[in-house]
């Protein structure tokens, strides 16, 4: 057992290094005073300073966050209703085809989704900008939300629904008092998945930004194309730290919830 875990440890470390090395390389050079990543000159916060003095970039960051929040919010609402609908379809063949249609959207390449939206919007005379990107983000986030919620719906014991009707609940009450509370974890994880998908989407967004509006990933791409600026390294570092904070926050939140439950039980036992 011990020997095996040693091998596992080495393997795990290797994988982690391969995965995280590029990011740490990037972070390392964000503190270099030079202009390129060929060698480290001296430690400086200059690039971070430049970032803060770039109002265009800050606007883009805020736009991106707003876009992601709105897109995942709408996608969660539409996806929840969609999952509820798919779940209640009785005919297996119909349910499976609906589910497949949902999954196709998920696995089809972003480029194709982006291109098709571009064709649709230009055909319909819809001007490209914030709203076109928002609509496309909602579209590709809905299937994710559906997939996160469906298993939770399947988990619900059907006799719980019977019991609710038995106690006099209307259809609406069964939904609001029983089904929605039970699938809330699925709705939340669907929301967060949609949020991350929307935040880091590049391909679809690239097709649909048009002029005047851009998101962070598209901006970084276009700046990187013009030549590496270490400002991007600084920005990437901040984003990395931000997502790290999110993960840690999520961890402590779930720990807190668990502890509260355990404490409640302990309290009752001692009482």
């Amino acid at each position, binding site marked *: 057992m011990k020997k095996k875990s040693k091998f596992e440890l080495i393997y795990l470390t290797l994988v982690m290094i391969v995965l995280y090395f590029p990011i740490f390389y990037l972070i390392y050079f964000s503190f270099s005073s030079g202009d390129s990543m060929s060698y480290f000159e001296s430690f400086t916060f200059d690039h971070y300073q430049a970032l803060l003095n770039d109002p265009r970039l800050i606007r883009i960051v805020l736009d991106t966050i707003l876009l992601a929040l709105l897109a995942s919010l709408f996608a969660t609402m539409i996806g929840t209703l969609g999952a509820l609908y798919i779940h209640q379809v009785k005919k297996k063949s119909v349910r499976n085809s609906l589910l497949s249609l949902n999954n196709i959207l998920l696995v089809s390449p972003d480029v194709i989704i982006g291109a098709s939206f571009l064709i649709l919007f230009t055909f319909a005379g819809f001007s490209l900008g914030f709203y076109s990107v928002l609509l496309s983000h909602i579209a590709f986030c809905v299937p994710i939300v559906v997939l996160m919620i469906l298993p939770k719906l399947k988990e619900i*014991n059907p*006799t*719980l629904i*019977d*019991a*609710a*009707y*038995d*106690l*006099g*609940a*209307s259809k609406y*009450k069964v939904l609001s*008092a*029983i089904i929605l*509370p*039970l699938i809330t974890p699925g709705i939340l994880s669907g929301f967060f998945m949609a949020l991350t998908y929307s935040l880091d989407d590049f391909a679809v967004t690239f097709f649909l930004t048009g002029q005047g509006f851009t998101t962070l990933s598209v901006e970084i791409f276009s700046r990187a194309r013009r030549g590496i600026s270490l400002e991007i390294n600084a920005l990437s570092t901040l984003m990395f730290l931000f997502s790290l904070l999110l993960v840690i926050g999520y961890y402590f939140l779930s720990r807190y919830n668990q502890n509260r*439950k355990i404490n*409640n*039980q302990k309290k*009752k036992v001692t009482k």
Partner: protein
Amino acid sequence: MATIIEMKNVSKRYDDGFEALTNLNLKIESGKFYSILGPSGSGKTTVLRIIAGFSDITSGALYFDNQNITDMPANQRKVNTVFQDYALFPHLNVFDNIAFGLKLKKRPKEEIKEKVANALEKVRLPQHSDREISELSGGQKQRIAIARAIVNEPKVLLLDESLSALDKKLRKDMQYQLRRLQKDLGITFVFVTHDQEEALALSDEIFIMNEGKIIQNGTATDIYDEPVNRFVAEFIGESNIVDGVMKVDYSVEFVGKTFECADAGMQQNEPVHVVLRPEDLDITLVDEGKLTVTIVSQMFLGNHFEVNAVDEDGNQWLIHATNSVSVGQKVGVYFDPEDIHVMRIGESQVDFHNRIEEYGE
């Protein structure tokens, strides 16, 4: 007593063509404890789901308090159900589970509090109001499920195999509690079970079901003493069933001998099934017995010995004896004429009752 639930010619066919119930007629009076007893797949749970309103019926009609409720949705019916898997809402605590129905009816808060406390008192769990469902044991969940149902003051309480998930000791305890609760509340209980002992112990009246039909109904002793056919005799309690021939009224021949019996009203020389309950057979000396058997095996079951024996013609006999016997010993078996129960082959319950009426018991 007044009839509270009546099913008239109810049939239920599923989409795949399976007929769960066939022309079922059933009457339930208010204030009694009923059991619907049958093997799995007999349609007993379907009957319950139809009364509760979770299943629709293919043909026939369902009456509640003389009102046709065939098409009334489940949430408007004045019955409540205790489910086999309890179906307690896992995201609500005990109080909110029990208060669920009352909150839907928008009762004032004080009243809800009082009624929930009352219901918890009735199931003897008064301290458990703010527990989470996940903290409860199986037996406690069971009782909370009952409290959640009775707090709505239904006229009929339906219980679906409600004790089958509990261990034997807890089950016995819950049986007493159920009986006490039914007496306390004075409402009708309809209890679905496949456990014949449970049904016999609890019920004022039992419906025996098989293959979507009611085979026999009556009080526990009626059904035990006068099973209408071989299925009931085998399903309810243990029995010795042998083929026989009805010679004339009050005289039946089986295992090559003719015996005096208490049954009549059949044709001469009609082939019949003869039932002898193991506890009605007494072991005596060979000269005093009506049959002579050889003991094959015996098992001590605490309150009696279960003896397996075989007669000269090779028929097996199951005997409940109070005293130990030795294996291989030849003994006599004695029974009274009233202990012989003769069943006509293929006789329905209606015909059976008519015959009994005519000839007395």
